[in-house]
């Protein structure tokens, strides 16, 4: 019997028990749907985080300085000089930061203050929408000027133009000189809910004047590596403690994120996969019932010349069709589910053909695997006993 007519035969017997077949397939369907949906959401999340990291700007190094005990004070100048002699560095921006309360007229808004210099715009790829960014002179002359994020503008000014207005930051007046273009939300927190001032002017506003973050933009990938090594060395010498600081390169972050999200996705898929196995047991159960019900048919087929392997094949194909039919429904359901859930949590689900194809093959495999025992039983039936069966 060729494969095509065998599959048609299998469809035929599946269709004679529509409800029963359907209930059996639901197990596989749910399992496959869960795997597909979770993997699609997982991959979507991963892609989203990656693009956020990539949007931070290329060849970016982030140095977090935690200090050692009380020795946290790395001054702006000190931080700036860490990389100023390195030709591989395009720009470096030390940042001090603090939570502050901003005020304009009667409106108040709590936000995050960054004290830095003109280089931050270059290093982080920030654009201003209106006005200007910090200038070198602002830093040198301790100008009380501020660049506002979109959220801060909305909270304090509504639709009014903030440029040229004075805002109070923790009670001290600053002149608004610029508004950042929308930054979006990244792993670094909201890029829109922040206010940027010259590091020299920030001194009165921050509890600790120590630089907590240093952003460094390298010239190229190789440069980033060199700079990382040099910084590692210099900071070790400065703090005498490898835990006092941490250097992240973008590649490293991407790797970490990919690893974490992949592991998470895999784990979720594995948990969902368990329900596939439960579905497989359902298939096995119904195949055993089918074999018993069709004992007489098996006897007849054997009596007219079917070999054991013909019977084996017939029932294996039937359970494979059952499995892959359930799998196909599951794929459709999973993709729908991923899209709906993705929309709900703001992630674009990614359906990779590999996963979809894999799920199909896997569900057919589950059908075959759990069909082996019932099919073997069918194949081994003694023709005479089978023919006597009522």
């Amino acid at each position, binding site marked *: *019997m*060729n494969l095509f*007519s065998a599959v048609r035969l299998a469809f*035929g*017997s599946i269709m*004679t028990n529509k409800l029963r077949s359907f209930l059996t397939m639901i197990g596989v369907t749910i399992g496959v749907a869960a795997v597909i949906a979770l993997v699609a959401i997982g991959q979507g999340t991963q892609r989203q985080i990656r693009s956020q990291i990539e949007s931070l700007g290329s060849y970016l190094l982030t140095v977090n300085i935690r200090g050692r005990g009380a020795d946290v004070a790395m001054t702006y100048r000190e931080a700036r000089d860490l990389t100023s002699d390195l030709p591989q560095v395009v720009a470096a921006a030390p940042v001090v930061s603090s939570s502050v309360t901003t005020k304009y007229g009667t409106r108040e808004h709590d936000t995050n203050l960054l004290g830095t210099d003109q280089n931050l715009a270059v290093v982080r790829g920030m654009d201003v929408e209106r006005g200007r960014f910090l200038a070198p002179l602002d830093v040198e002359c301790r100008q009380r000027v501020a660049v506002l994020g979109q959220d801060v503008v909305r909270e304090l000014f509504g639709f009014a133009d903030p440029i040229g207005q004075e805002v109070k930051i923790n009670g001290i007046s600053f002149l608004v000189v610029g508004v950042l273009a929308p930054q979006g939300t990244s792993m670094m927190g909201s890029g829109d809910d922040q206010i940027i001032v010259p590091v020299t002017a920030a001194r009165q506003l921050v509890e600790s004047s120590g630089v907590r973050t240093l952003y460094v933009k390298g010239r190229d990938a190789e440069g980033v590596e060199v700079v990382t090594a040099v910084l590692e060395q210099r900071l070790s010498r400065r703090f005498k403690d490898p835990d006092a600081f941490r250097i992240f390169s973008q590649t490293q972050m991407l790797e970490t994120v990919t690893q974490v999200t992949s592991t998470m996705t895999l784990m979720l898929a594995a948990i969902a996969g368990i329900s596939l196995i439960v579905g497989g047991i359902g298939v096995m159960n119904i195949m055993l019932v089918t074999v018993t019900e069709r004992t*007489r*048919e098996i*006897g*007849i*087929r*054997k*009596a*007219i*010349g*079917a*070999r*054991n*392997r*013909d019977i084996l094949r017939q029932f294996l194909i039937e359970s494979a069709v059952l499995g892959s039919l359930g799998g196909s429904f599951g794929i459709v359901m999973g993709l729908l589910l991923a899209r709906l859930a993705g929309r709900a949590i703001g992630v674009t689900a990614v359906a990779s053909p590999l996963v979809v194809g894999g799920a199909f093959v896997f569900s057919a495999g589950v059908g075959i695997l759990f069909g082996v025992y019932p099919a073997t039983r069918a194949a081994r039936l*003694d*023709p*005479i006993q089978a*023919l006597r069966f009522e």
Partner: protein
Amino acid sequence: MIRVENLVKTYRMGSIEVEALRGVTLEIARGEFVAVVGPSGSGKSTLMHLLGCLDTPTRGSYYLDGSLVSGLNSDDLARIRSRTIGFVFQGFNLLPRLTALENVELPLVYQGVNPTARRLKARECLEEVGLSDRANHLPSQLSGGQQQRVAIARALAGDASLILADEPTGNLDRRSGREILDLFSRLHRAGRTIVVVTHDMEVAARAHRLLRLQDGLLVGDERVG
């Protein structure tokens, strides 16, 4: 065509052994029309199952077309059932979900004949039993006599040279039974070897040789007709 020597078949049911055949020796030549008669439980069906390669003897040897069949493995037996033997049952044993034509095709499916060729052959066989107009009917849409004719067509489809029928008219009324017998006579004239188990002396009268079984032993072998 058939030669059995000292054929013994013992069924075990728990601790009890039932000797269904207790040493049957006989020979059937190609082209014979043989009837097997005997009281119920005398071992007629058991003998037919052994001759039809559906079962294997406990002891004794069975030569079919000169080659030893007893002791072959199940695949080889399946091949013999497929190529050489056509079995006709009392209860027809058609597959209920297949049409008459598809039922007749079935032996050819297991012979690996391609779909076009087997359709053609199956139609021929249905025509031979006079049922070409019922090709697409399901067994449930056919009378008992018609179902048995489909079963005979199925036995013919595989080009069986040996037709074994176990009480083929047992479930049929007299008229349908007679049609089936006419069919067997015709097949016999066409050169097939036919062995029929029966209770009905009218059936036995059609045959050219009568075998009598009793308690698992062959007690009579006579030429008739």
